[in-house]
């Protein structure tokens, strides 16, 4: 395995052998360690000293199902701290098959030049991108795949080009559709600052990485597949997708509604997983779909209009929550259109939805105004003044528009769980080095009373320290449905693939180290415990859905990582 190092100023590429202490780091762990080792924590996120890092998981490129997530990282312009944002699709898989553990992109281009990075068996080439700059993500990827063939593309849209802090990076799926987002943290802006429109991964001639202990691998893989296919949770995801969560979070008072003013949406049924399933079925779209080859979970879908034409793929819970109930919009068709526009402009739908929520709270447009919401997203695409304000995310947009109820932590928007309704996830939002991000430790699956403050700190700590196991290996976090109770099986897969002998302690230690590295980077970047707090209104304003405030004390929050 090797690491590619690209300098955007000198336009040079180096292929480096992996350092000994990086050998068994992958995904989020590798990003955290490189950030700590190489990136000045106080640097300007859009400046020459920040680096954009792509990292495959330790299982990346292998035949382990759902192990091809791509981790993208750097110092986040949104949080000002360490950021890893992982996405599905085939970018991670192909990069892993080519034998690259990661790509480190440094410095800034001279004279605002724009480039493509083309990776293949031959290495990495820097190509001109002028003809693609300015294009929406869908058109850019269509053209790139027309030119380069069946390649994976990781790409930004106009939002990233203009360095909007809500810009994500889009990754293509099995069908070449660019909608698997490494959405969070504004990494699209970092990519844009470096003048890169797209990373193209051509794995022609490369094969899946073979396990070093094939017999043990076969046994472990078989067991993993069995557990996955038997999992009730997987059956739910395969049928209803992540939209199945709408009614669940609504039932516990955690569905963000009208800029997080309540956790219950009276029209939730119109945007629920069951309604989505019925609608897609009646219109002959696809209710289930894999974002990467061999995925047994198949949580994705293809959402179509009344004529059966695709609006967007996939339509997922987070988008439905932040661009649906959070905006008082109860039409899946409108949410799907908003989602498509965000994908095309290269926007994180969570950040954009939260920004629209504060815009509505300010009275700039009314709650429930579907046409107004669509127009606001179009303004972001155009880069008008209001579009730029909203494109910078909920924290900046809220400040500009004079809104004190800004649902953000460390400058990043809270995702689809009102912290007063799902308090464990609230603890994660407050204390994760990632800023507000459910993927850093969501507790909605836990058998706990989500309204009670009891046990939430312990639960969040445990979840935050478990998630990096998946993030470091390139495993989709939904594999926890099968593997969560069987982490020894994860060890077995890793050991058989890599020919090592790790135990559960080693796997867990690396996950905890990942968090510690991120916390250290954040500390050196200037973060203090004052950054580990939820917005005040969650602690002061009662959530009418469950008659509760976020009542976990500052002192308790400060024990999460100590």
């Amino acid at each position, binding site marked *: 395995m090797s690491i590619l190092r690209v300098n955007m100023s000198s336009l040079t590429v180096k292929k480096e052998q992996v350092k000994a202490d990086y050998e068994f780091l992958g995904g989020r762990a590798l990003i955290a360690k490189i950030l700590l080792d190489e990136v000045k924590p106080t640097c300007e996120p859009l400046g020459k000293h920040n680096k954009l890092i792509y990292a495959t998981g330790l299982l990346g490129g292998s035949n382990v199902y759902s192990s091809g997530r791509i981790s993208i990282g750097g110092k986040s312009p949104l949080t000002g701290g360490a950021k890893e944002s992982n996405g599905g699709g085939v970018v991670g898989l192909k990069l892993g098959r080519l034998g690259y553990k990661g790509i480190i992109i440094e410095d800034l281009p001279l004279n605002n030049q724009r480039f493509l990075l083309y990776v293949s068996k031959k290495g990495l080439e820097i190509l001109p991108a002028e003809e693609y700059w300015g294009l929406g993500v869908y058109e850019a990827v269509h053209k790139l795949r027309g030119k380069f063939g069946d390649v994976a593309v990781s790409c930004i849209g106009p939002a990233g080009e203009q360095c909007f802090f809500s810009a994500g990076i889009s990754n293509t799926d099995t069908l070449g559709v660019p909608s698997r987002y490494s959405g969070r943290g504004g990494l699209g802006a970092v990519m844009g600052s470096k003048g890169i429109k797209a990373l193209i991964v051509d794995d022609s001639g490369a094969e899946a990485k073979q396990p070093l202990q094939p017999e043990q691998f076969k046994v472990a893989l078989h067991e993993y597949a069995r557990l996955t296919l038997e999992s009730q949770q997987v059956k739910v995801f395969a049928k209803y997708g992540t939209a199945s969560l709408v009614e669940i979070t609504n*039932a516990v008072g955690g569905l963000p509604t009208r800029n997080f003013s309540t956790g219950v949406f009276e029209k939730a049924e119109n945007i629920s997983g069951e309604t989505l399933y019925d609608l897609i079925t009646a219109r002959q779209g696809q209710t289930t779909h894999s974002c990467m080859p061999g995925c047994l979970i198949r949580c994705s879908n293809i959402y179509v209009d009344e004529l059966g034409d695709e609006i967007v793929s996939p339509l997922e819970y987070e988008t439905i929550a932040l661009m649906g109930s959070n905006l008082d919009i109860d039409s899946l068709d409108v949410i799907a259109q908003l989602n498509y526009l965000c994908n095309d402009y290269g926007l994180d739908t969570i950040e954009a939805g939260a920004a629209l929520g504060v815009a509505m709270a300010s009275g700039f447009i009314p709650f429930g105004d579907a046409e107004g919401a669509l127009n606001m997203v179009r303004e972001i695409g155009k880069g008008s003044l209001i579009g730029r304000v909203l494109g910078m995310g909920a924290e900046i947009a809220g400040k500009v528009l004079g809104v004190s109820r800004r649902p953000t932590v460390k400058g990043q928007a809270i995702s*689809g769980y009102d912290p007063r309704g799902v308090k464990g996830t609230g603890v994660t939002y407050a204390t994760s080095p990632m800023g507000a991000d*459910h993927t850093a430790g969501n507790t909605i699956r836990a058998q706990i009373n989500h309204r009670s403050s009891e046990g939430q700190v312990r639960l969040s700590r445990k979840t935050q320290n478990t998630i990096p196991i998946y993030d470091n290996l390139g495993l989709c976090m939904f594999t926890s449905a099968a593997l969560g109770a069987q982490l020894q099986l994860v060890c077995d897969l890793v050991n058989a693939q890599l020919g090592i002998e790790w135990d559960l302690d080693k796997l867990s230690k690396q996950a905890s180290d990942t968090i510690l590295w991120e916390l250290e980077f954040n500390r050196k970047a200037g973060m203090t415990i004052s950054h580990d707090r939820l917005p005040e209104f969650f602690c002061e304003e009662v959530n009418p859905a469950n008659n509760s405030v976020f009542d976990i004390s500052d002192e308790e929050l400060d024990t999460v990582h100590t």
Partner: protein
Amino acid sequence: MIMEAYVEVHLKLNLQEYKPNQGKQFTYKMLKAATVHDLINELNLPDEESLLIIINGLQASLETNLQKGDQVTLFPLIAGG
């Protein structure tokens, strides 16, 4: 004392598949004072530890005693998306 109680049961998402003849919601007659645990057992639903239980709009537990007229909504527990 033996108490007769009717509760309204809502089965969400794929839990409906365990009661295909009864639809998404139905009235259920409990033969004795019972807990949610008893109800789930009688309905033959799988893996009671993996259910989210809502009674009259608030989260409840397996040990919660059912009252006449309660609206019981059951979801499979799933990880967040």
